[in-house]
């Protein structure tokens, strides 16, 4: 963390703006552009502000950046982007990408993404990332020139490897399972949370109807009129309070979503390992079979059934010269193969080492962040209760207002309770 970019540079995504333009197919489209502002951090001196650099980027450029990072640093758990479309929506939130609340939350998510990358010991040193932040024009071309898209592993290849690999590092297999579990449990949690939010919203909003009825009712009452009016007003305030409460909760949901997407990044690293391991195993297998072939040719024995054996039986043995030539070729291939195997082995071991180091770093970050998120969620609940609790005495008060005439029954224990409330 010593030299990471975040320490040297202040990065913010400060604004979002709707734009229209022409896309690749020359059709009109609307999109949102985000303003990235960067400023070099001076060592703590008064008021010395270095100039702020800024440029606009849209979401697809962020995606491009991330894809580049994924391919270039396959052993790193690359921070995720905020969701492309609004998911886990509950009643009130619109699923529209142009919705101001959604855009705002996305802005925050994008800023968070940049900060995460900038504070990562490895990723922050990447040139492409740096120019993403600082170079307005020509960045896209620069990225494409790196040719990273060619280096990307095909999905099919990766899938194949996952099924066929024989000896992956157990830790990665476990990690993959953990990633699966994490993803599934967080999705479930977010879904239920959305439903709970929906219901809570309903409870509060229906209370708002009280406000209207009380106000209408107060018109026909003499003694009760004032009390009803203010009680109604309090109901309106109560009903309105849910909007802020749920907006806060959305931020908590966003924190969880980040780790939902992180789970996918985890799995990507595991997949890469499996792919490399599979490659290694295939290379080793190939080498072994070539060695075997060589041996067979050299000794003339056919140990196992092979096409060579068949054809030689059918068409007669080949000439010694031919055999020599073949052996020569094979020996060359074997040598190549052994070198390749060695380097692949090394690659694999390096990968495992560096990937695991990053995974450990990630685990610590995850534990810290999630704990903080949970605590902040608890604090939020307390705050929400305090808010609503603060309203209730007011509501209660209105019903006890002295303007009413007392009924024939004994007085309510009003005074005792009131004192309790106001201490």
């Amino acid at each position, binding site marked *: 963390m010593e030299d990471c970019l975040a320490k040297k540079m202040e990065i913010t995504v400060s604004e979002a703006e709707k734009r229209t333009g022409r896309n690749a197919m020359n059709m009109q489209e609307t999109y949102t552009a985000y303003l990235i502002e960067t400023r070099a951090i001076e060592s703590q001196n008064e008021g010395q502000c270095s100039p702020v650099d800024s440029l606009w980027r849209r979401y697809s450029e962020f995606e491009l950046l991330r894809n580049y990072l994924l391919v270039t640093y396959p052993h790193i758990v690359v921070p995720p982007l905020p969701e492309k479309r609004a998911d886990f929506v509950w009643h009130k939130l619109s699923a529209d990408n142009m919705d101001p609340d959604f855009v705002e939350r996305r802005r925050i998510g994008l800023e968070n993404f940049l900060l995460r990358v900038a504070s990562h010991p490895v990723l922050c040193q990447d040139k492409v990332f740096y120019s993403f932040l600082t170079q307005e024009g020509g960045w896209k071309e620069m990225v494409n020139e790196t040719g990273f898209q060619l280096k990307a592993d095909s999905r099919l290849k990766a899938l194949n490897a996952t099924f066929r690999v024989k000896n992956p590092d157990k830790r990665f297999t476990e990690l993959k399972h953990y990633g699966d579990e994490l993803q599934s449990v967080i999705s479930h949690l977010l879904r239920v949370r959305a439903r709970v939010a929906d219901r809570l919203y309903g409870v509060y909003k229906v209370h708002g109807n009280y406000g209207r009825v009380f106000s209408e009712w107060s018109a026909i009452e003499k003694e009760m009129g004032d009390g009803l009016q203010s009680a109604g007003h309090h109901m309106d305030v109560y009903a309105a309070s849910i909007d802020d409460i749920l907006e806060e909760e959305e931020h908590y949901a966003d924190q969880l979503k980040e780790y939902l997407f992180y789970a996918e990044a985890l799995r990507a690293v595991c997949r890469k390992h499996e792919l490399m391991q599979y490659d290694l195993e295939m290379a080793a297998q190939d080498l072994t079979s070539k060695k075997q072939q060589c041996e067979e040719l050299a000794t003339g024995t056919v140990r196992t059934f092979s096409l060579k054996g068949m054809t030689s039986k059918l068409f007669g043995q080949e000439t010694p010269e031919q055999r020599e030539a073949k052996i020569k070729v094979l020996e060359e291939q074997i040598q190549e193969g052994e070198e390749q195997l060695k380097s692949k082995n090394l690659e694999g071991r390096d990968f495992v080492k560096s990937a695991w180091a990053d995974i450990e770093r990630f685990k610590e970050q995850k534990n810290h962040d999630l704990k903080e998120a949970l605590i902040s969620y608890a604090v939020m609940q307390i705050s929400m209760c305090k808010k609503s*609790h603060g309203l209730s005495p007011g509501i209660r008060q209105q019903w006890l207002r002295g303007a009413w005439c007392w009924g024939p029954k004994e007085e309510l224990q009003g005074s005792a309770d009131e004192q309790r409330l106001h201490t």
Partner: protein
Amino acid sequence: MEAEGRVPGPTLPPAGGGGPEPLAGSPGVARAPPLTAPAEVLEFDDEEDDLEVFSKDPSLAEANSFSPSMPISPSSMINQYKFEDEPELKDLFITVDDPESHITAIETFITYRVVTKPLPEKFVMKGMVERFSDEFIETRRKALHKFLNRIADHPTLTFNEDFKIFLTAQAWELSSHKKQGPGLLSRMGQTVRAVASSVRGGVKNRPEMFTEMNDYVETFSHKINVLDKIAHRIYKEEREYFNEMKEYGPIHTLWSASEEDIADSLKGVASCIDKCCKATEKRMAGLSENLLPIIHEYVLYSEILMGVLKRRDQIQSELDSKVDALANKKADKDLFSEEIGKLEDKVECANNALKADWDRWKQNMQYDMRSAFTSVADNNLRYYEEVIGIVFHGPLFVAFGHFTTFWLLVTVTEKKPQKRQMNYLPWHTVEWLLNPEEGRGGREKSPEQKNESDQKPHETSVEERKPVVTPMGTDSYKWL
């Protein structure tokens, strides 16, 4: 049997709904076949001895121990009402035994005019089985108890002969007495006539006071019905909220199984959520016990009031028509004068009785409404306090240490983000936590913090979402 519909009119209990049936002396007649009839029920039907035993046993729990879903015969249920009611009532009544000699003269007036309290409505629900649930029995018992008490408190009704008999007679005496009075149907007929006559055309000489009353009752009736709907809707939404919350806690427990470091925190959250669930349940129970019955009662009241006013109008219109007839010299003068005299008395008595009772009713209504809503507010207060307690003293904070929590929050607030960033605690909740003793409003803010609050981030592009309750048309309540 309980096949009779709800009686909105002012006729007294013996003919009214839910009245006690003759004891299981005639079980064959009294029993209504349950809609769901598991095999066990048939067994019981055959063993009348067992039925007798159950009918005398006031504790429902034992009866249900045979088969929780088995409906017990209605007659045995009714007896349970009586058994449970009597001890309570006997304690409270003082004046019932005082028979007044002029009762019989007033009695007929009473049955026509004075406001009687609504009977708890018969439970109209999907399955018969539900009628015999503990909760319902308890609710109904309370309502009937209240009903009888109200009559007892009423200055006029309390002296009513029928009422006295209702309380003191044995079941078999009651049925014979019931047969003496004018039948239910004839009384209902009078109500129908009264309604019909007022529909035909308003009363000409209705004093202004009663016109005002009429207007009031109409508006009140409308409002109370809306209130009823709102209260029920709130209950329903809270119930749904509770149902979802039940699922919310266990997910955290499930998650904790995959984690190591944060497993405890997750379990802490899970247990907090579960406790909050229970608190929610309590709150809902409070709502259904305190508010819903009272509002519902007043819904019925408003109907009764309308009926009473109409009846008064009917009497007046009788008088008016006779006066008109006299004026047109359509019949024998003397006879009419006498009749008119009587009717005039009747009208005057009715008006006075109604006026007195009206004031009394209004006072009661205000008191009842006030106590109902106050108790709901109290309930809510308790609920929020409880939740705060649960979360704050829950395992999440305790494991973390309250002091450490505060320290963490303080260090976080020092960053004072201009715009909200991820993974920072919301600044204003933190601020609150640092000042836990101050209530809302009147909080002493440091100048720094004051600036903070003024700069609360709010993008101009974000629209203000106004609460949807705006007075629009007459019937456009939201969420109903």
